[in-house]
């Protein structure tokens, strides 16, 4: 935390964030210090380059998409509020606060569904598969895997995966325990 008065976190801001996202006081301060350490430009917001500077993220196959998830539609900078809002999706959810807007499944779905039409089409799936699998596999094989995936999950026959179908598959993977990070609780 620097001595920049404009970027110090005020108590009332912490309270607001706490109410909105449910994080605890200590977690918010911890994440704020992380935010400022990433913010090389010291202007209170993060740009895409700031994220890309994280070394492990660079080798993550889904790195770019994850970074994109932080930035709301069309913008290039994200402030601390937005940062926390995205991270709130990965808080372990207590049973009594199941909130669909803040569920991790939704973010995961958005990572697949780039054009935001609420459906994962075959191409979008192919793109994600290609990112995860690397370059050794031929397009045809990947295509057949994608087809198989859609075939398995698709219940209404529109040849793409809707959010509900996605949720149903994730249920089997027992997602509640997986879609959260231990740190953030």
């Amino acid at each position, binding site marked *: 935390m620097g001595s920049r008065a404009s970027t110090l976190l005020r108590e009332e801001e912490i309270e607001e964030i706490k109410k909105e996202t449910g994080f605890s006081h200590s977690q918010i301060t911890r*994440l704020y210090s*992380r935010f400022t*350490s*990433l913010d090389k430009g010291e202007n209170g917001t993060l740009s895409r380059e700031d*994220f890309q500077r*994280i070394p*492990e*993220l660079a*080798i*993550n*196959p*889904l*790195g770019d998409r*994850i970074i994109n998830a932080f930035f709301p539609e069309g913008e290039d900078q994200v402030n601390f509020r937005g940062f926390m809002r995205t*991270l709130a999706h*990965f808080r*372990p959810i207590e049973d009594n606060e199941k909130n669909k807007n803040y569920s991790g499944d939704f*973010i*995961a779905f958005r*990572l*697949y569904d780039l054009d935001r039409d609420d459906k994962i089409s075959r191409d979008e799936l192919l793109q*994600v*598969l290609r990112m*995860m*699998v*690397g370059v*050794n*596999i*031929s397009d*045809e*094989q990947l*295509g*057949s*895997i994608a*087809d*198989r*995936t859609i*075939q*398995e*999950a*698709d*219940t209404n*026959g529109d040849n793409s995966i809707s959010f509900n179908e996605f949720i149903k*598959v*994730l249920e*089997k*993977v027992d*997602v*509640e*325990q*997986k*879609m*959260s*990070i*231990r*740190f*953030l*609780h």
Partner: protein
Amino acid sequence: MPTGSGWLSPAGSGRSLPGRGLLLLTVLVLLEGTVFRLGAASTPDVSGHDTKDHHKATAIGHNSTKKAFPVLDLDYGHIQTPFEISLWVLLASLMKLGFHLIPRLSGIVPESCLLIVVGLLVGGLIKIAGEKVPPVLDSRLFFLCLLPPIILDAGYFLPIRPFMENLGTILIFAVVGTLWNAFFIGGLLYAVCQIQTGNSSELNGLGLLPCLLFGSIISAVDPVAVLAVFEEIHINELLHILVFGESLLNDAVTVVLYHLFEEYSGVGTVTVMDGFLGIISFLVVALGGVLVGAIYGILAAFTSRFTSHTRVIEPLFVFVYSYIAYLSAEMFHLSGIMALIACGAVMRPYVEANISHKSHTTIKYFLKMWSSVSETLIFIFLGVATVDGPHFWNWTFVTVTVILCLVARVIGVVGLTYIINKFRIVKLTTKDQFIIAYGGLRGAIAFSLGFLLKEDHFPERNMFLTAIITVIFFTVFVQGMTIKPLVELLAVKKKQEAKRSINEEIHTQFLDHLLTGIEDICGHYGHHHWKDKLNRFNKKYVKKCLIAGERSKEPQLIAFYHKMEMKQAIQLVESGGGVKMPSAMPSTVSMQALPQLPKGREEEIRKILRSNLQRTRQRLHSYNRHTLVADPYEDGFDKFILKKQKIIELENKPDSDSVPIIQVDLASPQSPDTVNVMDEFRRADQEENQGLMMRCPRGPSEPKKSEDTEGARDQQKLMRCLSDPGPSADEDEDEPFLP
């Protein structure tokens, strides 16, 4: 030994008359040899026996009394030991057979109980017959022969992902829980003994250390018993892995405590220094065991990389390396169980990538067979050993022990869960806690450890043994029998029957990447971060060393996909071949909800398959041990696909923008009307939308080729499947290493 040990009896040909005659001759010769060996023999007329001289090296008979020529004689002592062992194994197997023939019984009473009862009966029979009961649960026999197969089976098929995810919880239960149990039981028993000073004198001399020793023996949850009982109740994966993992990992604790107290019981005191050394010893035992196991596991994986030309002995490497790992660990008094688990778990992903399909089946079935027989034998021997005694029944001691065991377990589980739940994302509910507490069964390991005690050091040994047996009986019978109805009553979540689909696989990996990314953004080096690092290390360096050839570069997703496809193809053939290709059905992997074909159609298909079947059988020569006829469909199924791809690519080379035709699976999503597999073979020109098959836009020659490819490939698949029915659908194999 001049008996017929070297004689190769042509037993197989004993059908025809000359064969039978030859067999009879062999038997006579063998018996004759036996008689000679017994020494009270007639004149050895060597010249007359020159045709059979290769099994009668020396003529023994010296004396001159001539007896009648013995036609039939009995020499039991010669074959006694192997014969008895075989009889026991046969008994165990027959019992296993028998129980499943009586369906009602096996539904109510778990197998382990029935086996103990059988053991009691057999022991009783032996005693009545006046014979001495063999010390069947002799510790050496138990620890060196009976226990390893069970543990290896458990370790090799250990579901790594749930195990690693819950490792913290499992370790806390195993270490802290067992320590708590041991000290609680030991301490309170000592207190009870002190209280009893006035009354019966037997309990008087019981010092603190023997009590603690007893506590440490009786406190450990037994993997054999847990496996036997939990296998039948099909409980959900989390609880299963928690209890089972605990039973495996508490071995280290038990070993250390046992040796600690046994050593110092003679001396009489344990100082703080000893306690400190004990802690260090525990770390050495546990980590050392794991290290030894991992080293041997890597050796085995490395060896399996070179076995592509000697497929026959591949399974042997797995077994031998594992057993040596166990023995090496036991040699240093490290935890043999942990060594075995580590060895199996480490070698599995690499070995499975290297070995052939058939070897995989062999390993799987051998492990299951051995562990099954071992388990059966252990329970029968428990029964026999109970009859054998020596017993010393002391009401106070035994009842207090039983009660204390239960109480200690419950308190331990509840207390630990309270602490653990603070760190878990998925909390353990009360129901879970109950099942964990109730599933803490004791078994044969406790008995063997008690048996190992020396009578002179521990005059109370018999009392201990009686108490141990009582606790074992109680847990196995009472808890074992009632756990199933309790599980039903409490509506505990059962094991998910559905197999892992490709969807789940993809999404799991996707989630892993996602969460790792988020962790990196937060700057938090958590669970996912380290898992990701390990995976990357694995892919970059380890896989290249340990996996042969092309498979080392295969991404996990693709390997999984191949496996699934193959399994499906096998299932297709096994189910009679008359299976419709479902279109847009949610789970094509589990062929459960498939519509039935009309009768006539099915018969047609069966006929086709039958004729195919016969042809294949004739083609496979009955190979001898030394040379497996290179089965072209056997090895390198993947290489075959790659080769075919390359050929097709080569052929299509001049045509740069045509898409090579690659068929990847049988279960292609078809057009809405369901298509029969057999039709695929016959009809060359299907409608354009084949789903997977991308035709190049050129002329009629292409479809022909594709049909040939498809037909040929399917034929290959059929024949390969038929020559080796393959492992039965089992979710054990679906788990990738560190997914």
